[in-house]
């Protein structure tokens, strides 16, 4: 019994310690975000790596989701004779929920893992120490550009995901299932407000911050060689995805 209590106590302490370290890391990142020098070249490079290189995976996920959503909605709605509502369902789902969440999960898997692996390797091969010895702050040089690029590109990738998802839904709804295109478009437009799109995009900014911060935190604090890099990478993806799903509920409740 004592051993069990000790185990629970140790795990709780370790969790609290980790949470504290993450909060300090986030605070430092915010602090260095607004102080000179600004590494614009690094930011642009990261925007390409995190954003541009994630376009294919986001496009595939979004178009597939939009198409499946239209197909499944049609099957269900047909029973009530409400096929004309497919457009509204696809638009609302893609803008408020699926666009930002699926983009967040995809970017966490691709770019978050890559950030953790890259920074983790730099940590274990002493490249981060080398930056300190060259009088360069690694938080500013490595973390801030990744954090900002992750937020900015998640915003645009989510917007792209929403659009492509809706397009995929339109294709299936109109071209495959034969819904009247005017009805489909009217339903989509009349039932989706600009605020729905903004809610989705605000979520995407938060998810971008999560992916950037967790990816960098895990990489920056890697210990123990190749095994440590592997753990950091897995940890970055798992924690980012879980946080995205948890925060999604609270943001949805808040932005209802």
């Amino acid at each position: 019994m004592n051993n069990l209590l000790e185990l629970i106590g140790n795990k709780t302490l370790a969790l609290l310690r980790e949470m504290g370290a993450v909060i300090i890391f986030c605070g430092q990142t915010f602090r260095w975000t607004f102080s000179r020098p600004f590494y614009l070249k690094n930011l642009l490079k990261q925007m390409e790596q995190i954003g541009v290189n994630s376009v294919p995976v986001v496009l595939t996920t979004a178009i597939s989701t939009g198409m499946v959503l239209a197909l499944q909605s049609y099957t269900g709605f047909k029973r009530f004779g409400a096929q004309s509502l497919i457009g509204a369902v696809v638009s609302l789902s893609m803008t408020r929920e699926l666009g930002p969440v699926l983009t967040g999960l995809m970017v966490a898997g691709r770019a978050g893992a890559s950030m953790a692996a890259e920074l983790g390797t730099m940590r274990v091969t002493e490249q981060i120490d080398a930056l300190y010895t060259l009088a360069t702050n690694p938080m500013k040089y490595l973390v801030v550009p990744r954090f900002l690029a992750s937020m900015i590109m998640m915003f645009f990738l989510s917007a792209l995901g929403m659009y492509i998802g809706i397009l995929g839904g339109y294709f299936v709804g109109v071209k495959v299932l034969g819904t009247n295109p005017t009805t489909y478009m009217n339903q989509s437009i009349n039932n989706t407000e600009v605020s729905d799109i903004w809610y989705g995009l605000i979520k995407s900014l938060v998810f971008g911050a999560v992916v950037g911060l967790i990816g960098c935190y895990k990489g920056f604090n890697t210990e123990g060689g190749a095994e440590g890099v592997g753990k950091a990478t897995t940890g970055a993806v798992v924690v980012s995805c879980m946080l995205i799903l948890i925060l999604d509920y609270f943001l949805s409740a808040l932005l209802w």
Partner: protein
Amino acid sequence: MAMIEITNLHKSFGAFPVLRGVNLTVEKGESMTVIGGSGSGKSVLIKHIIGLLFPDKGQVKVDGEVLNDLDEQGLNEVRKKFGMLFQGAALFDSLTVWENVGFGLKQHTKMSDKEIRDAATQKLALVGLKGVEDKMPADLSGGMKKRVGLARAIAMDPQIILYDEPTTGLDPITADAINDLIVDLRKKLGVTSVAITHDMHSAYKISDRIAMLYKGEIQETGTPDEIRGTSNPIVKQFITGSAVGPITAD
């Protein structure tokens, strides 16, 4: 005049004490080598000298400034006096050789890329490398990486160079070439240097003085000849590489 003064330096990681009251002084222009076995605290000691780690107790003074008392900016100013060669060279994977060598110049001067590249080429020539400017670190051999690391360490014309295991992982001939390079650079640049190593051949060749670190304490300090003739059983066992004696393998 002392360039580096380490006084009563204590450092623990968790409950495990690594340094237990290290005292060491390195004079300006001197070449000091700290020897010791794996886990003796050499790397921890060198990381304190450049402010990558901070003492639990005691202090490190560099060129008259106590590192513990400095803020981020002050610390960076002190770090600009240093060049450091890492054990694995620690070259930045994503940058070319010349960008690695010129990294400090890019960050801290207003030099153009062409001027930085020229300066990098010059430093690379000093360490015996030509025509590698545009290569990526992954395309270099271990010995070449060390040379590029050394060129990066001297790029900002530092007053102090730190060498972390400069010959580890190299074949004996390349290792000796690196030793010659260290001696040669010191003659040319007149810098203070601190090396940590367990390679006695290297220690004898590059040092004015050698200090032996064992179990977190300095056991003995002396010139290479004094160390060779030591009566301290711990130092004697280490320099002769004997498995029999007070030092036991972990």
